């Protein structure tokens, strides 16, 4: 009866991978589903733990979503790794597709401890306080830890690869296809044959539904791809190299699974043919097939399927179970791992890019005047800590405006989302980044609230603005401004734009539409970032500014 488990597991893997891809594709604006598209990230206990420990608070939505995987692991060990994890399935598929064949599994047992050390190092970083600050700064923010979990969490890694590599590449292909079909549709030959014309129309409509208005760009795509390719290629050394040796989520679930009542049992029928040992994806079975390692086993049940004697089965009774080969963690190594975590946290935090300005407003860093965070972002320290760089916000952003930081805000904010208005503006009626953030580094916000979630402030460079510098007729920024923050000032008979910095929320639409090439004469700077204010304070500022201004509601019933 256990023989079919392997087939069931494969079906489960494919279904979960399909669900992962589908949810990724559904992360769009306007939203197409009410299911949380970041479901896999939310269900990841490592991400939940990291967010809660490093932010020092209980976040109930994270607890509820992560609970099923925790419970699953308590009963079935690392079944998540074998049956659900989309990274594991991707690795399995790639190994099959590219015929990557690992060496004999038992040849690298010491390596498998590394994932526990990684986990320890990550937990240490979470526990550390993020920064030492002056008393003034301390009052402005919560004390938070440092999180480096984004470097190693498999779900975050895979989602990021999908966003930074999969999305732009697939859109590149789709965009070219659309252009080719468009070209055909204008061909004389097609025009003269109404039937062809009619056949092309639905293809064009279909393509326009899945293709973005313009090409999708991301930086760090190549880096992200190299990391992912490395993970897959390591399979040449041993199958599922990542899962068996490096994955901290696997380590965490393995530890939880220590209490699992379900064990593998090997009967006396075993002839020591070693097929199970060779087939085991993670090298969990020792040279003696009666002995295996519980925290390593990913419950793929290939051992059951390949056993010619049907000697392997599952049991809930301890006395029937196979002997367990314990993973013994070296105390010295554990201390080293803790030290490594400490050093990682310290080095991230002393990178000069993380240095603050004297203003004490914690959003402002000396490394960039353009560190524009999406609306709903936590204070800078908490944000950088809570963000797992999964890239869901960048995927869902309809204008491609959100980009992974690379230098802005220093090493500690590598890969975190920043708004790059010249690529795209923050669309007034979209609030999706706040909806898809699995750790609430971007807290959910309503479309109405956006009017006071100041990201920054637009500023006009009068030396290049064509109205100011050349006296030309241009008020595109004023035309476009969704919040009516730009007005006109008549100087020498020509109308020229000026920004009301209390109404400007820094959405960047003005910068995006500015006809001054290449960078625009109106630009958004992080000066106006008001994340160190409470939302109520920000709303009051907005309301007050409005009363003193035009009196037209910025909330046009969107």
């Amino acid at each position, binding site marked *: 009866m256990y023989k079919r488990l392997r087939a069931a597991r494969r079906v489960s893997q494919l279904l979960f991978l399909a669900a992962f891809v589908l949810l990724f594709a559904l992360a769009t604006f306007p939203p197409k589903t009410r299911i949380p598209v970041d479901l896999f990230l939310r269900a990841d206990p490592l991400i939940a733990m990291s967010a809660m420990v490093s932010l020092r608070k209980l976040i109930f939505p994270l607890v509820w979503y992560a609970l099923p995987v925790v419970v699953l692991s308590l009963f079935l060990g690392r079944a998540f790794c074998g049956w659900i994890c989309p990274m594991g399935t991707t690795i399995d598929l790639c190994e099959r597709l590219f015929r990557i064949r690992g060496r004999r599994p038992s040849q690298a047992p010491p390596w498998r401890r590394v994932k526990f050390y990684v986990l320890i190092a990550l937990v240490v970083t979470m526990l550390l306080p993020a920064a030492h600050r002056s008393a003034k700064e301390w009052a402005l923010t919560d004390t938070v830890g440092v999180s480096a979990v984004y470097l190693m969490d498999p779900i975050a890694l895979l989602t990021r690869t999908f966003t930074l590599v999969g999305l732009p590449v697939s859109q590149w292909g789709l965009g070219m296809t659309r252009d080719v079909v468009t070209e055909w549709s204008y061909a004389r030959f097609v025009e003269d044959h109404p039937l062809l014309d009619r056949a092309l129309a639905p293809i064009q409509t279909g393509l326009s539904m899945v293709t973005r208005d313009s090409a999708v760009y991301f930086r760090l795509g190549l880096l992200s791809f190299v990391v992912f390719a490395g993970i897959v290629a390591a399979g040449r050394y041993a199958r599922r190299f990542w899962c068996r040796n490096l994955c901290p989520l696997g380590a965490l679930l393995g530890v939880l699974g220590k209490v699992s009542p379900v064990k593998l049992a090997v009967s006396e029928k075993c002839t020591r043919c070693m097929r199970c040992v060779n087939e085991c994806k993670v090298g969990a079975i020792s040279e003696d097939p009666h002995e295996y390692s519980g925290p390593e086993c990913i419950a793929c049940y290939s051992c059951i399927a390949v056993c010619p004697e049907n000697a392997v089965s599952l049991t809930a009774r301890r006395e029937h179970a196979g002997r367990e080969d314990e993973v013994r963690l070296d105390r010295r190594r554990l201390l080293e791992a803790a030290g490594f975590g400490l050093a990682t946290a310290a080095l991230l935090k002393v990178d000069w890019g993380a240095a603050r300005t004297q203003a004490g407003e914690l959003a402002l860093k000396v490394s960039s005047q353009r560190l524009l965070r999406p609306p709903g972002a936590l204070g800078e320290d908490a944000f950088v800590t809570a963000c797992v760089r999964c890239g869901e916000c960048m995927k869902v952003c309809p204008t491609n405006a959100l980009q992974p930081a690379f230098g802005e805000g220093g090493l500690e904010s590598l890969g975190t989302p920043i708004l790059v208005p010249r690529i*795209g503006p923050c*669309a007034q009626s979209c609030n999706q980044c706040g909806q898809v953030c699995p750790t609430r580094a971007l807290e959910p916000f309503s479309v109405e609230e956006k009017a006071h979630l100041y990201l920054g402030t637009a500023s006009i460079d009068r030396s290049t603005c064509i109205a100011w510098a050349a006296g*030309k007729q241009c008020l595109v920024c004023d035309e476009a401004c969704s919040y009516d923050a730009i007005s006109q000032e008549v100087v020498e008979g020509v109308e020229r734009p000026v920004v009301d910095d209390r109404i400007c929320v820094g959405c960047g639409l003005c910068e995006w539409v500015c006809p001054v090439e290449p960078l625009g004469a109106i630009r958004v700077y992080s000066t106006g970032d008001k994340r160190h204010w409470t939302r109520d304070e920000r709303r009051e500022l907005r309301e007050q500014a409005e009363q003193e201004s035009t009196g037209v509601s910025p909330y046009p019933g969107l």
Partner: protein
Amino acid sequence: MDLGSLHGKASMSRGRMTRRDFMQWALGAGLAVSGLSELSGKGSAAEAAAQPTVVVASAKKPAELVRAAVDALGGMGKFVKRGQRVLVKPNIGWARKPEHAATTNPEVVAEVVRLCKAAGAREIKVMDHSVDVPDALVLKMSGIKGPAEKAGARVIMASSAGLYERVSLRRAKALKSTDVLRDLGRADVFINVPIAKVHNATVLTLGCKNLMGAVLDRGAWHRSGLDQCIADFVTQFPPDLVILDAVRILLTNGPKGPGRTEDKRLVVAGTDPVAVDAYSASLFGRSAEKIGHLRLAHAMGAGEIDLSRIRVKNV
């Protein structure tokens, strides 16, 4: 559309000249063009000699206003022949709902499509290049997609470069060449369906200004002089028919709003793009002479600006 009247001899040599033919011809490098501008000038002068008519339909539902106005101009059959391709260019420029009066009334657009369909059009495309992004959102908020598609049109938000082609504007003073909608060249009939709004840079945005949504790079217009570029474009690409939506007009904070609006319940229509705008300016208490791009367009022979020379027909 028949550009014959506009381009005199150039078209006669090829019989009936479509707009695309013109584009291909204009792009052709070896053609001597020196004498032609004079000829075409004569063409438009002759056209202007006949007093242009502007129809103003009032006091009905939006769709009925359109029907009444088009009927007064001789019915859609006069403009759209069986089997022709039609390009309808509404204003879908901003992520705003119809009630904000920043985009063309969906019922007006749908009725235009319906009339074209009834006249036997083979293909009706409703296209605009919006300023706001993303396209899907702008289109959704405008409320135009559903009604227009139901009426038989294809609604396309034109932001991808593949939908445009480079064209030289022969008579232009500022906008010498630009990427325009390919469908503008391909369609037999071009119908402009703007909404009347105030505009911070051009005083008002009516029919002529609405044509700015038919090009890929609007920034160039600002850089090289907005009023002149609008005039250049409407001179080169005059719509066959303008149906201006003044059902509800935007009085402040245009062109995007939100601002103060007024329910005028009017549709203004005509074949002279400048005359339609000149009349529509009066809805805002403005004189067309004071609007730079209309003045320039008139000077270039694109249409009549003087209200005393325009026949206004109220229906």
